[in-house]
Every structure is written in structure tokens, then in C-alpha cells.
């Protein structure tokens, strides 16, 4: 099993989520994160002093799926998350040893 971790722009969440549902992804976990990369932060002013907000708000989306479905899931995220502007984010794929559903104790594919 593989975990697909995507760092996306917050306002794309709906689109990505819906796209994943359509291809049958049963679940996912989302985290509020701050990103740092090519997309630079911005400068704010507060009472005469400037300060740079270097980190950009992003969402981290984690989806664990069966290894064979990775390509299609990645493809789906790519198309649904893309705006074409700097800062669209990244997708990381990791290997997952094991998955267990807490409620039932099911393991592997059944647990997803």
C-alpha cells in the first residue's frame, strides 16, 4: 500500500476532494500547514513597521491507497489541484507497511 501526500493550495480542497471521490477514494486526512518554497510570502505593515510573512498557508492531504491505484490517484490530484501558478504544491508518495482499521481490526486493503 502507498501513501500519497499532496501539499495543495487551500482553496483547491473542494475540487481535489470531489475528484478523488469520483475515482472511488474512500477516505483522506487533511492538515493545515505552512509552506515555504518558490512561492514567496508577502510583506505586511503593522503600525509603521513592515514584516515578511514567509510561510504560505497550504493544506496537506494524505490518502493511503492500494499500490496499483497510485498512478490514477496522482493523476487526479495533479489535474484537480493545478492552477498553473507557482505554489501549486507537490505530491509525495511513500510506502506503507500496514494499515489497520481501528473499529474492526481489519488489515490491508480491507482497512481502506
Amino acid at each position, binding site marked *: 500500500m502507498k501513501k500519497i501526500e499532496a501539499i495543495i493550495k*487551500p*482553496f483547491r*480542497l*473542494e475540487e481535489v476532494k470531489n475528484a478523488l471521490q469520483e475515482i472511488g477514494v474512500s477516505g483522506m486526512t487533511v492538515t*493545515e500547514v505552512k509552506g515555504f518554497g518558490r512561492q514567496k510570502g*508577502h*510583506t*505586511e*505593515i*503593522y503600525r*509603521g513597521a513592515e514584516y515578511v*510573512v514567509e510561510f504560505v*498557508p*497550504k*493544506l496537506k492531504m494524505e490518502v493511503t491507497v492500494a499500490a496499483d491505484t497510485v498512478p490514477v490517484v496522482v493523476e487526479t490530484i495533479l489535474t484537480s489541484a493545478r492552477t498553473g501558478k507557482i505554489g501549486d504544491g507537490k505530491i509525495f508518495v511513500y510506502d506503507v507497511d500496514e494499515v489497520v482499521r481501528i473499529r474492526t481490526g481489519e488489515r490491508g486493503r480491507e482497512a481502506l
Partner: protein
Amino acid sequence: MMRFATKKRPLILFIIAICLIAAANGAVGLAEDSAAPLAQESAAAAGGSDVPTAAEVQKNLDFVWTMVAAFLVFFMQAGFAMVESGFTRAKNAVNIMMKNLMDFSVGSIAFLLLGFGLMFGTSPTGWFGTDGFLLSDFAKDADKWLYAFWMFQVVFAATAATIVSGAMAERTKFSAYLIYSAVITALIYPVFGSWAWGSLHHGNGWLEKLGFIDFAGSTVVHSVGGWAALWGAVMLGPRMGRYEKDGKVMAIPGHNIPMAALGVFILWFGWFGFNPGSTTAGNADIARIAVNTNLAAAAGAIASLIASWGIFRKPDGAMALNGVLAGLVAITSPCATVTPMASVYIGAIAGVVVVLSVLFFDRIRIDDPVGAISVHGVCGALGTLLAAVFHEEGFTMARLGVQALGVASAFAWVSVTAGFLFFLIKKTVGLRVSEEEEMDGLDYHEHGNTAYPNFQLIEKR
């Protein structure tokens, strides 16, 4: 800092400029009131050194009461700011605070320059005042009451303007906002005001001559603000993501309901200056007006809670808050001419109507983030009509007719002028921010600020 340095020289000039204009004006200052007794003395005086007559004391009491009431009405600005910001998103909170602060500030100056004269100056035609600008009447009448009356009226004028900002929240350009709130306080509100209230000072409006009853301004203040809000919201269009193609109405929940609730409490509190204060006289009448105001607000809250409970199967908090305001707006016109029982009915009716009205405007896809159109426009008109229906001297068709005429003329006047105003702004400086600005929030793009920098916000749309 360095890149700022260069830009400070003009400011020094700016200050010098102010001083020069001021100097030029110095004479005015002299003429205006050449010997204001220092308060210490007058305090002594009041202490008994010279013996005042009962009539003089009553006059002083009218000053005290009218000022206290004006202060309470001023405080409503804080209430409006809390309600509007609580009912909208965190990313626009600074912008909303600034709008509420600046509309009162700009409005105060605009009312000084133009508004007061247009509303209360001598009005040959009955359609607008023609003198008394810049508080110049004092030179004429040398009556200090002018200041008390002006103070009470300026806080009313600012209320009309601030109502608009709620309906146009989260997508209006700050510069456009400053312009239209100045115009509303300088022209749109005062001219209509002169029709209904001009005779309170030097004017005499055509509408009041017909016997139009609007004791504290359900129509003059609230409907006028509400209808301006309506046209503003129409011209702007809804916030992004508010109405989906498939016709679904998407809620955009306000970011801080307790803040909105505090705002409603402050407004309720301030309304005790708004309605009873409109006697501008410290006498026995203020008590029943206060009772009526309170009962209508209470009935409005209960009625809208029941209504929302019935419709949505849950007692919706935000709706109950609107219900209080609906009751308050509706009783504003009749508060001095109906019985307490009648006030309960008026509040209750308004409480139900506001719920239906909010649903109605959502259905016709006019996006009003705080419900200003329903609360101030619709319930303002409603209250003005109910003033005839529940008049303590009994219902007469004639009275209802006059009230209806007032309601209609307010709608007509505001629709034409505000409609034109917003159209003009749209074609010139522009009324609405860009999609990107709306998405990121106005705080950053308009002000370069963030309302809650220490809090982890939920970033979605």
C-alpha cells in the same frame, strides 16, 4: 524605514497647510462664540452663586438628557462593527473595523460641511435645507442648543451610512466605501431627512406637513440605510461561492458569533438613546418609549427564535440576533405613539418577517452577509406602517396612507440616488475588489494587515 523617510516631507507641509487654513478660519472661530464661560465658572454658577429659574434648569436637563442619549447612539457604531464583523469571515475583520470607524469619521465631517444644512436649514421648497452649514446658525441664533441638536443628529446620520456596509461586506473596495458613505451622509440621508424632520430645526418638510409619523427614524434612518444597502448589494453581486450554478444557496458562516451577539447587546443598549432620546427633552415621556423599545426587542427575539425553530427545526442563533434588531427597527417609528402591548405585537411581527425576508433575499440571490436589507429596509418600512395600524388613537386609513406615502417616497428617493451613486462608482473607481483579493481577504490586500496573526485559521476559500 528608509523608503518611508522620503515620504514624510509632504506630511509636514500637510500639517502647515492645516494650520494655515485654520488661521484663515480663526476669525470664524472668534465670531462664532466670543465668550464660552469656562466650565469651572459655570459649575460654580450651577452651585448656586446666581439663582436659576425652573425653566432654565429644565433646559439644562434637556441638554444633559440629549447628550447622554447621543452618546448611547454613538456607541451603536461599536455594535454595528461587532455584528458585521462577527457575521463575516476572519480574513475581512480588519477591513470591516476600518469601514465602521471611517464611515463615522468621514460622516461626521460630511454632516458638518453639508448634511446638517441640507436636512435642517430653512427649506423654502420643503424639499431640502439651504443654510446652517458648518454650524453657522450659532452666529445667527446664539443658542447653544444648536450644538446639542447637531450632536444628536450627527450620530443618527452616521447610522444610516453604517447600515450599508453590512450588506456590502467582504467584497467592496475600501476607497469606494469611503466615497459612498460620505455621499450618503452628506446628501442622500439629509435630503430625505429634511422632508420628514426638517421642522425640528429651521426646515419644514413636505412629508411631515402631511402628518407623517416617524418618531425616531424607522424610515428616515433605517429604511434609507436599508434600501441603499439593497442597491449596493445588487450592484456588487454576491460573494464568490455564495450561490452555486445548480441554484443551491451556500452558507458562509460568520467567524465569531459571540462577537456578533455582543454587538446586538450593544445595539440594544444604544437604542435606548436612539428612541427615548428622540424626545430631545428630559421629561416623563421617555419612560414609556423605553418600555416600548425594550418589549419590541424582546418580542422580536422570541418570535424569530420560534420562526427559525419552526422552519429549520433548530433555534438558529444568528436569526434570533436578527430578530432583536428587527423588533428594534420596527418600533423606532411608533415607539412614542403606541401602547406597550402594541409594542409587543409590533416586535413579534417584525421578528417573523425578518426571518422570511432573509430567506426571500437569499432565494432571489441578493447576498446580504448580515441581513441589513431585511432588518433595516424591510422592518423599517414595516414599522412605519404599523405605526398607523397600532396608533394609540386608533387606526385610520388616512394615517396609513400617509405612512405608506413616506415609505414609498423613501424607497423611490434612495433607489434613484443610491442606484445612481453606485453605478457611478462602479464605472469610475470601481466598486468590487478582484477575485484574488476577495479570496485572500480584504485585510491583506486593502490594509496589509491581519486580524488574528497568532491564531491558526482554517484556510479554505
